[in-house]
């Protein structure tokens, strides 16, 4: 008997050496690829405390420093030194110095994340790799140390829910607005322990960058991961870039799902998640005029070439409002180079933006762009719980690059479609 499988089930079956798996069973898997960032130092601790001496399959491991760079204290600097020494000694496939970009972005653009792969990384936004049809799952740092030491770990096979998208977005509405709508509908743990697979006729209209935004914020509904089916868009991106052999995987037409959401994209409005929780989304038009002090166009969610182009398009021949700081952080150096070449970075700087090195920056809440008490940051990132940007007495709202740019001009929350 043939058992109909979802994309995630097929990938987990292969990675556990089985013909099929069923939701909720626990399987032992060997990941195809693993990566980490600054917090790898804790994985090194765990690895050494386990008594391990050599990493299993170092040729499938990469580290990319992103969370705290350039470093602002000796302790973190020493941790970075330790990581550099470890990757050299263990002969990891690659190491990316701080400033290369946010690890999730770098792994995608350098071809380390490939369709059909099981990817593990010690970060909660690992699901971003689902943009390329990989099953990309976040682990803790001890757990990554365990995978380095043994080459495997255990996973519970998650049920899959699907988000079926039809129709087309109207002008000025972005993938971010759709995913903020989904997060609002599901709630912050609405897809807890589950996979979200994005399906429907509209899927083929989304670029890899937009798919990345969807999969990235799947973490905000508690999902184990988010994933897009491998299609022509995936292939066009991966072809010539992939570091490993790959095989795209798609759900069987009769696969079983634990739930379904359908969305008509034509109905989606520009959205903003109000402070405190990612699921507090409302239409920007309903909250327009809310005061802001800082605008952050950055993070793994929305700081790619297309995002910066949208922001530059709005800020061209305009100025950032004098009461607002606009911080721009390209998701990677490669993004920065392209946006410099096409003139978008110059446009943003001319408008009054402050450009910061590629990395997590403000989003990581540890060393840059911290807010004062009572201040409000409008951000293209993915999280807005209290304290996320380093001060629990400040507020964060989440939006698309278009809304961020328009609001930076107006000095308050603004629907970009209303700028004249």
């Amino acid at each position, binding site marked *: 008997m043939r058992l109909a499988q979802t994309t995630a089930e097929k990938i987990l079956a292969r990675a556990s050496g089985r013909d099929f798996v069923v939701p909720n069973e*626990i399987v032992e898997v060997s990941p195809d690829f693993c990566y980490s960032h600054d*917090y790898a130092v*804790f994985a090194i601790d*765990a690895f050494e*405390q*386990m*008594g*391990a001496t050599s990493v299993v399959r170092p040729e499938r491991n990469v580290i990319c420093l992103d969370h705290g760079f350039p470093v602002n204290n000796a*302790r*973190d600097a020493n*941790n970075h030194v330790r990581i550099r020494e470890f990757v050299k000694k263990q002969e990891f496939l690659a190491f990316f110095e701080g400033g290369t970009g946010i690890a999730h972005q770098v792994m995608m653009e350098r071809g380390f994340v490939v369709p059909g792969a099981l990817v593990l990384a*010690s*970060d*909660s*936004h*690992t699901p971003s790799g689902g943009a390329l049809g990989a099953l990309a799952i*976040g*682990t*803790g*740092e*001890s*757990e990554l*140390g*365990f995978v380095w*030491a*043994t080459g495997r770990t*255990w996973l*519970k096979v998650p049920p899959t829910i699907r988000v079926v998208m039809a129709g087309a977005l109207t002008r000025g509405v972005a993938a971010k607005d759709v995913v903020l709508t989904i997060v609002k509908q599901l709630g*912050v*743990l609405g897809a*807890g*322990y589950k996979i979200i697979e994005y399906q429907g006729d509209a899927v083929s209209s989304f670029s890899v960058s937009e798919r990345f935004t969807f999969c990235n914020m799947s*973490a905000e509904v*508690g999902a*184990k991961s988010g994933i897009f089916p491998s299609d022509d868009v995936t292939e066009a991106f991966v072809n010539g870039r992939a570091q490993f052999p790959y095989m795209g995987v798609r759900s069987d037409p009769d696969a079983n799902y634990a739930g379904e959401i359908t969305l008509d994209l034509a109905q989606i409005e520009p959205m903003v998640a109000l402070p405190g*929780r990612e699921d507090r989304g409302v239409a920007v038009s309903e909250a327009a005029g809310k005061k802001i002090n800082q605008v952050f166009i950055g993070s793994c969610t929305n700081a790619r070439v297309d995002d910066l182009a949208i922001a530059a398009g709005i800020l061209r021949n305009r100025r950032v409002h004098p009461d607002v700081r606009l911080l721009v952080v390209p998701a990677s150096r490669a993004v920065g180079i392209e946006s410099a070449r096409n003139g978008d970075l110059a446009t943003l700087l001319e408008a009054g933006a402050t450009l910061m090195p590629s990395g997590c920056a403000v989003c*990581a*809440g*540890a060393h840059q762009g911290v807010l004062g008490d009572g201040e409000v940051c409008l951000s293209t990132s993915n*999280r807005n*719980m*209290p*304290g*996320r940007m*380093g001060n*629990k007495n400040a507020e964060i709202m989440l939006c698309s690059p278009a809304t961020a740019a328009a609001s930076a001009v107006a000095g308050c929350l603004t629907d970009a479609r209303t700028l004249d």
Partner: protein
Amino acid sequence: MMGESIKGAITVVGEFVSADIVLPARYSFLPPAEMAEHVLGELPAEVNRGVRSRPIIVAGEAFGYGTGRESPARALRAAGIKAIVGGPFARMFFRNVVNNGVLAIDCADIVGSGIANGDEIEINPATGGIRWNDRVFHGMPTPAIIQKIVASGSLIEYGRAALADMARASS
């Protein structure tokens, strides 16, 4: 030993407490004892006192959601926490907690049951049963692999034993 029950007094923590609130990112690199001083420190001071003096937390919906950093779990362990019940929990937080030797049991029923700070409960990891006075709540049974990790003390201890087994098998 595997399956041994966990008994002790509880501290109640509300719903939608993110992992960034359990321990903010800026404290991630502190030594354990100092982390314990900051655990849940963003909430009223009695919460931190509670979790450092009682071994079990009854936590509301989505406890630990958000960041996948492991430092919040390390901080709870450092504070002396042995088990967290309630939830449902965010998955990375759940894994990080058990990997640090702290049992976590999804048991939505105990949240809002009227249980209060200082009350004693007894947890059976294998069955997920939680006894509070004469009431029993039915939480999620703990899979064998998680029972083993928690019983080892942490994933590090479990990993040490697994590596030793692998070395024996190949020699």
